[in-house]
């Protein structure tokens, strides 16, 4: 029958992942984000006038916020493709509207399914492994929320305590942690085959080139589009390698 043949190779858990119930379950938390934005916005607008900001300044700030958000949000949308492909529409939408970014959510999901020996993109991922990915993203994301919820009032003191000497180390430790983690992620991909390796290398190379151009010519939009472009080109190279040379290991 036609409908059996047209069944996609999408893993079975995708029915659950794209179900109405999951869409519904994402509504409350996304509402909190919008609610907070509305509360803060109202108060900032009225207190802004109090402290001497003009209507024009407030409007210009608002307008710039809207305009500047459109480009990056579309770029996030392209990045969301990878997340939709692996965890479904609702969870992808929620994770990228609340807390997350593609750079956190993908690895967090990968760490979830890897508990069962799977890797994102495997077609036989079980519903349990998928649920582990959801838990992994959710619990992993709470760290930022808790620190910002209870740490923000103390941030100023903490910053000063860290002192000058260690101030310089903060960005270095952050970048080193990121490099170590992504080195681990990408070596796992390199181990899976030639097309994956080509995709890793291309993604990195395109990113380097685009960021270099953006820096030299001061092109902000290029920075916003760099990751989206790098992943699309990396994808194309991966496919090209798959259909031409296949894999060597």
């Amino acid at each position, binding site marked *: 029958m036609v409908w059996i043949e047209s069944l996609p190779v999408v893993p079975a858990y995708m029915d659950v992942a794209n179900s109405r119930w999951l869409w519904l379950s994402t509504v409350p938390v996304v509402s909190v984000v919008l609610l907070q934005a509305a509360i803060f916005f109202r108060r900032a607008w009225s207190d802004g006038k109090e402290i001497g900001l003009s209507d024009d300044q407030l409007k210009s700030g608002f307008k710039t916020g809207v305009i500047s958000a459109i480009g990056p949000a579309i770029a996030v949308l392209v990045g969301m493709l990878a997340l939709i492909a692996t965890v479904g529409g609702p969870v992808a939408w929620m994770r990228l509207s609340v807390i997350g970014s593609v750079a956190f959510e993908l690895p967090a999901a990968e760490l979830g399914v890897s508990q069962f020996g799977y890797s994102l993109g495997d077609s036989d991922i079980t519903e349990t492994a998928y649920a582990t990915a959801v838990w992994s993203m959710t619990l992993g994301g709470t760290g930022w929320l808790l620190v910002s919820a209870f740490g923000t009032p103390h941030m100023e003191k903490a910053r000063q305590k860290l002192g000058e000497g260690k101030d310089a180390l903060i960005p270095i430790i952050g970048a080193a942690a990121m490099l170590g983690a*992504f080195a681990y992620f990408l070596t796992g991909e390199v181990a899976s085959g030639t097309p994956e390796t080509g995709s890793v290398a291309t993604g990195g190379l395109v990113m380097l080139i685009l960021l270099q151009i953006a820096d030299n010519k001061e092109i902000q939009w290029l920075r916003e589009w760099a990751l989206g472009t790098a992943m699309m080109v990396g994808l194309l190279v991966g496919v090209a390698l798959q259909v031409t040379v296949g894999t060597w290991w």
Partner: protein
Amino acid sequence: MSGNTDSVDGQHSGDGVYETEFIPYINKWGRRTNALAVLLSLGPAVALLTVFDILPPTQAITGAFISVAATFGIFWVVEPLSYYPVLGIPGTYMAFLSGNISNLRLPCAAAAQESADVQTGTPKGSIISTIAIAASIGVNTTLLGVGAFALVSTFQALPELWQNALDSYLVPAVFGAIFAQFGRDYPKVAGAGFVLALAMTMLLELGYLGVFPGYPLYMVIIVSVFGTILIARWMWKQGMIEPPEES
């Protein structure tokens, strides 16, 4: 309440309202909303449990959480601290609730401060960035919501080769790109991290990590992350690396 003295331009006029009313209000509601979001973010996980009766074994959840904490735990503290000077107190609550900070919230806040002609770090700057970030949250949530609905069906309509391609080759490219983004600033650290991770991955694949309990994936992560941090710290003390200039 207090008068809005137009006299002093910039920081000092209206500091009273900002410090005594705006910030306490923001702290009160910021704490509540972000803490509430912690609970509500469990929505999909709870739906999987209650509606579909899917609950992973505790050890799988724990294992995944430990791996995520080992990889990203440091950012829970490092990122709020690092971005705080630019975002201000309201911006910190909002940005860490809504995510996409470096690629969306920070640029929006900075651009708005520029266009409204206020200084970063001042009360006026903080108010303008609050407004800009709120605006960006509206745009982002709407665009992604429409996109997620539309893209799900688009994805399912794609031919097999491309579905497979999206599944298999988009993620490695993201990993490569992010690695390159940070590697630009710290090529030596990137080199060290890559060699370390490759060595650990090969040890894992060849079964040499069998002395550790369970599936010792976590050893690869811990050694890759903390090994790279220790190497970077050592390099910094040797004067081999330094943070990039703020652009």
